[in-house]
């Protein structure tokens, strides 16, 4: 099995002490910020991005990935114990998790969530392991035409499948596309919107935008929130669920894994949507749906499994196609670019150590999280007592320092401040920053690929349909564009079950 050799070599990469250490650091930071309702994984990765600059690419991505899936574990803890979701993707866990805690079954809820997360995460890694080489075998068939179709599809999905208002998401995406046009035209050398500034000659760098909008913007916005004082958490005992609970939840864990895997791959999807869809599905399937909201184990196990499965599977489009599926993946994309690695179909073959190192680190990271999450619950809950007055200035300082170190440029620091304000204002007026940043990343890809393909096709747009992959992608694009119409028709026939999630304060975080 030649195919398995690089996979095994990947384990050798992960087991290097340095990489193991960074994996541990990553998942611990992930759990910490998962517990803190203020900071999400995207903000944390944005802030810590420059710190990874001086380590090996594989080590850097192992750590950043750890932050992402670690946060999915951490977010559960406060949902269950304090009715305070640490992450948007753990919001639905509150319904049944907190009820279970009130019934003295907090340990069971946390145990189920941890086991479910572990199974969901692992299932997605296995999927990734087998799917990636398959996609990579098409690597050379991916030319400008395919990338244009892919970028087009990605932008559409990002703008339509976001959790907030669709119009606002479209507006944000349009601004992102506009920002992507700044800088020298790659095809003519003409300067666009640079106002004679040499700093803007190559366009706006992705990293300051992400650090500003996700990092600084998030910090500023959180200053407005008056955090509820942390209540004393319920006592946690019996973290190993009883056989009866496990039996009850096993179906939910299995379905959550599959659902999360597919929703994670979808551009614009991700952990939050996966957890909500799983909750809705479990409730629909249950024989006694009235148990939900009163401490049903499936209501915890399903969403927690799904969000972890989705967090892991969202690495698939990034690592195999170079298309970030959600905001956090856009940051991973930035991290890889800083390291001089352009993610795309060639990554598996050209950088097998990096690819398999990162993928395999997720097995290790999930085991670390499973071991740590239960005994350390008490410590993590204490983190909530750190006051925003201390946390905010420290993180803001780290963000600005970090922004300077990437290109040794004060201009980048100014950009971070400007986009920090933009991010704050967007949040304030209910605009999701995710579509803006993703459209920015995909916008330059779309423009250059589109113009490149038209050059190759001699200006004939029908050329896109002469190539099987780009034709298929464009057909999917059309389907997705008309899908909302079909869906709303279906929704009119059946009542939507998702609407019941509305009463909980849903503060979307990226």
């Amino acid at each position, binding site marked *: 099995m030649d195919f398995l050799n690089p996979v095994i070599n990947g384990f050798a990469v992960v087991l290097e002490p340095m990489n193991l250490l960074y994996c541990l650091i990553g998942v611990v930071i992930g759990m910490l910020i998962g517990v803190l309702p203020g900071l999400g994984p995207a903000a944390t990765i944005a802030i810590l991005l420059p710190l990874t600059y001086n380590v090996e690419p594989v080590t850097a991505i192992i750590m950043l990935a750890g932050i992402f899936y670690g946060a999915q574990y951490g977010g559960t803890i406060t949902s269950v114990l304090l009715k305070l979701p640490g992450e948007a993707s753990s919001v639905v866990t509150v319904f049944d998790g907190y009820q279970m805690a009130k019934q003295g079954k907090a340990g069971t809820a946390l145990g189920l969530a941890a086991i479910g997360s572990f199974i969901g995460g692992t299932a997605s890694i296995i999927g990734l392991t087998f799917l990636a080489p398959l996609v990579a075998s098409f*690597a050379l068939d991916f030319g400008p035409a395919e990338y244009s179709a892919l970028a087009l599809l990605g932008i559409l999905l990002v703008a339509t499948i976001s959790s907030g208002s669709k119009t606002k998401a479209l507006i944000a995406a349009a601004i992102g596309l506009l920002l992507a046009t700044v800088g020298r035209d790659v095809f003519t050398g003409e300067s666009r919107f640079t106002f004679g500034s040499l700093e803007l000659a190559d366009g706006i760098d992705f990293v300051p935008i992400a650090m500003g909008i996700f990092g600084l913007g998030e910090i500023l916005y959180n200053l407005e929130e008056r955090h509820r004082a942390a209540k004393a958490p319920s006592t946690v005992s019996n973290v190993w669920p009883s056989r009866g609970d496990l039996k009850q939840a096993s179906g939910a864990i299995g379905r959550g894994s599959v659902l999360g895997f597919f929703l994670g791959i979808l551009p614009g999807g991700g952990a939050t949507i996966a957890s909500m869809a799983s909750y809705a599905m479990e409730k629909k399937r249950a024989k006694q749906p009235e148990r939900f909201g009163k401490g049903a184990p499936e209501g915890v196990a399903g969403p927690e499994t799904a969000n972890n499965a989705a967090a892991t599977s969202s690495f698939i489009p990034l690592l195999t196609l170079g298309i970030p599926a959600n905001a956090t993946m856009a940051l991973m994309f930035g991290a890889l670019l800083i390291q001089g690695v352009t993610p795309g179909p060639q990554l598996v073959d050209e950088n097998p150590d990096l690819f398999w190192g990162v993928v395999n680190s997720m097995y290790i990271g999930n085991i670390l999280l499973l071991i740590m999450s239960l005994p350390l619950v008490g410590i993590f809950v204490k983190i909530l007592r750190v006051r925003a007055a201390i946390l905010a200035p420290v993180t803001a300082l780290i963000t600005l320092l970090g922004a300077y170190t990437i290109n040794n440029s004060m201009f980048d620091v100014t950009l971070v401040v400007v986009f920090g304000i933009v991010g704050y204002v967007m949040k304030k007026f209910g605009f999701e920053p995710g579509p803006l940043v993703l459209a920015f990343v995909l916008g330059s890809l779309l423009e250059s690929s589109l113009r490149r393909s038209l050059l190759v096709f001699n200006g004939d747009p029908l050329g896109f349909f002469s190539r099987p992959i780009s034709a298929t992608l464009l057909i999917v694009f059309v389907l997705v564009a008309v899908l909302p119409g079909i869906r709303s028709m279906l929704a009119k026939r059946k009542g939507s079950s998702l609407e019941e999630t509305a009463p909980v304060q849903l503060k979307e975080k990226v």
Partner: protein
Amino acid sequence: MTHFPSRRTIIGTASAVALLALTACGNVAGGSADSSKYPSGPVNLTVGQAPGGSTDLIARAISEGASKTLGTPMPVVNKPGANGALATKEVAGKPADGQNLLLINASLITITPLAVSADEAVNIDDLDIIAGLSQDDYVLVASEKSGFKSIKDVTAAGRNITFGTTGVGTGSQLAQTVLFKQANVKGTDVPFDSGKPALTAVLGNQVELATIQLGEAMPQIKAGKVAPLLVFSEDRNTFLPDTPTAKESGYDVPVAQYRAVAAPKGTPKEVKDKLLAAFQETFKSDAYKQFNEKNMLTPKEISGEEVVTQWKEYAAKYKGLIEKYSISLSGTK
């Protein structure tokens, strides 16, 4: 309350000591004007390209050798932007004391001005060139599906041919557009962001030809996935001895990437001599020689004056070629 004034005294003394220390430091830094004491602290080597690329790697190889001879660290500072114009303008504006150096690409002087507006262009006379470093050759490669095995196949094809370049205003674009004009072949210029995507497009048969730097193309040439048609250097490249030059095939288009170390204009002669000696010591080291070999760079360790003359000659030559064949590098034909 007796301890109160005493604490004040301590603070006062402490700040006085700190002030003294600061002025002492200031004296050391001020000493840089006296060039016999050069270098007075770390010498920054600025690179106008992102880390990991060939220009950056060369800077790191050079700084490692020269810092040993100079006895002071020589950190490489990456300041990417506008093809290196941003870094060049910044270093040119620094004090001419030899503490700030620049690793500069010839294309910024010879080719970029042909594609960008005047205020983005850089003038070599704003800098003192200390030493030339090496030559990085361009090779024209053909995809498997195109069936081209030599430049004759291309000229005999009698149809429109798509070719990938490493971007607008690069040697890759200049070399191919001029070659196509001279060979009277019709072609479509497809710019990519750098060498790697252009090579991938050839491998995937999205374009038929591409001109990229030898170090990038070599693994695929050796694997037989792309066919080398010609090199654009004046003489055959030692790493690719069986591939003819454009000149041999009858085309007058000598294009290569050259690199040199520069300092702000007006750097004292003693400082420049000291730096030159340090670089020459590096050129002799085995580690640096191996670095060049590994990256398929041909040493071109010429004096600063020669660099200026040669680069100006190339700039004039390219300008002449472009006007002669009425080529616009900015695609607006």
